[in-house]
């Protein structure tokens, strides 16, 4: 009995360490993506003021929700946080991209950038992501019920 308990504790620690490692890898990947994007989009920052801040804020909240979601891995909350992440992305994109029409003024030059196509595709992908999270939550609950029934 004692040996089994020790085995369970070890298994739990190993599971938590692997979860932490997974989360760390994801955070590192997000930082790499941020650094790469910052460099690629540096020329555009001249025309779009606040672009770097916009990306940084987005990644910060996205990574935070991803970390929380991963830390709750193995519970139903993981899927709720994952769904919240998708909804956050949709809302953030709509607000930060001004519903897809970006309007900037430099001196006497007015620049209008129409990114509605990007916004629609991104929103559709996130809606698919949200649907996936809900399906995972349903699957999680149904598995629990099946296990209890067995």
């Amino acid at each position: 009995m004692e040996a089994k308990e020790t085995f369970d504790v070890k298994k739990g620690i190993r599971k938590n360490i692997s979860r932490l490692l997974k989360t760390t890898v994801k955070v590192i990947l997000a930082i790499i993506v941020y650094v790469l994007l910052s460099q690629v989009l540096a020329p555009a920052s001249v025309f779009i003021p606040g672009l770097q801040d916009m990306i940084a804020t987005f990644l910060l909240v996205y990574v935070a929700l991803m970390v929380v979601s991963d830390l709750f891995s193995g519970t139903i909350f993981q899927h709720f946080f994952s769904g919240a992440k998708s909804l956050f992305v949709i809302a953030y994109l709509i607000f930060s991209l001004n519903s897809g029409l970006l309007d900037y003024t430099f001196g006497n030059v007015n620049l209008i950038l129409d990114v509605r196509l990007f916004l629609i595709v991104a929103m559709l992908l996130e809606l698919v992501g949200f649907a996936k999270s809900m399906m995972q939550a349903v699957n999680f609950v149904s598995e629990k019920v099946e296990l209890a029934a067995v």
Partner: protein
Amino acid sequence: MIVPIKIIGIVGAVCWIILIAFSASAIYSMKDIQFSLGQPQISIIENSELLFSFPLSLTNTGFYNLRHFNLYTGIMNKDGSEVARGFTLIPIIAQGQTINTTHDMKLNSTALFGFNQDLLFNDSELRVNETASMNAAEVVPIQASSYLSVPWGAPLYNLMFRTPEVLVYNATHLLTNIKFSFENHALFGFTGSLRIRIYSDAGVPIGGGKTIIDASPRSPYSGNIEIYASSRTVTRVHFEVLLTTQFFKYGPLEIVYGS
């Protein structure tokens, strides 16, 4: 159920990577679009219109093609009415391609001077609206527009008629020599005719003459016109001046001479 969910997740992630890569490269490509508009060539076409041809050069060294490049130039009068406009549409600029063309703009002098003859005599400023639009990476519409003021040089700046010199030509006629001058501040030169008619104080025509004008751009011009008038006794005459060029008409201007 787990397998389809995982497939949805993988497909979603792949789509996100493609979308981000495409968006980032499309924005990055914009810095490789070079656009230049040169000094205009000015020519005169039918219906009193001036044609300004701006050499336009576009180089696309970005990753994607550009579609529907459209350049619009509109020149507005002081009262906001459009006096000149030009459109240039390039359907596609392929990746790595350079396109050299001209951006043509027609200036209708009737519309320009018809309502505002002040522009013939006084230097001024015209408002120009320049708008360029295109589909970057074929699917991302971008539009840049600007309002600026351009100086307008009056073609008949400081038009002056000197006091007529009257000489006796013969027993019945007098020779009247009228000197005139102006400065053509405009970017374009013009040719035309200056016609003067002399009327007696009773309004009876007593003579008239005509001279040809050939004014170069941005240069002063002076000339004279000789008029043979009947030598009847008049104390007061008035001159009627009519100027006709290939793209504007001015007159009749009445000048009273005598006491």
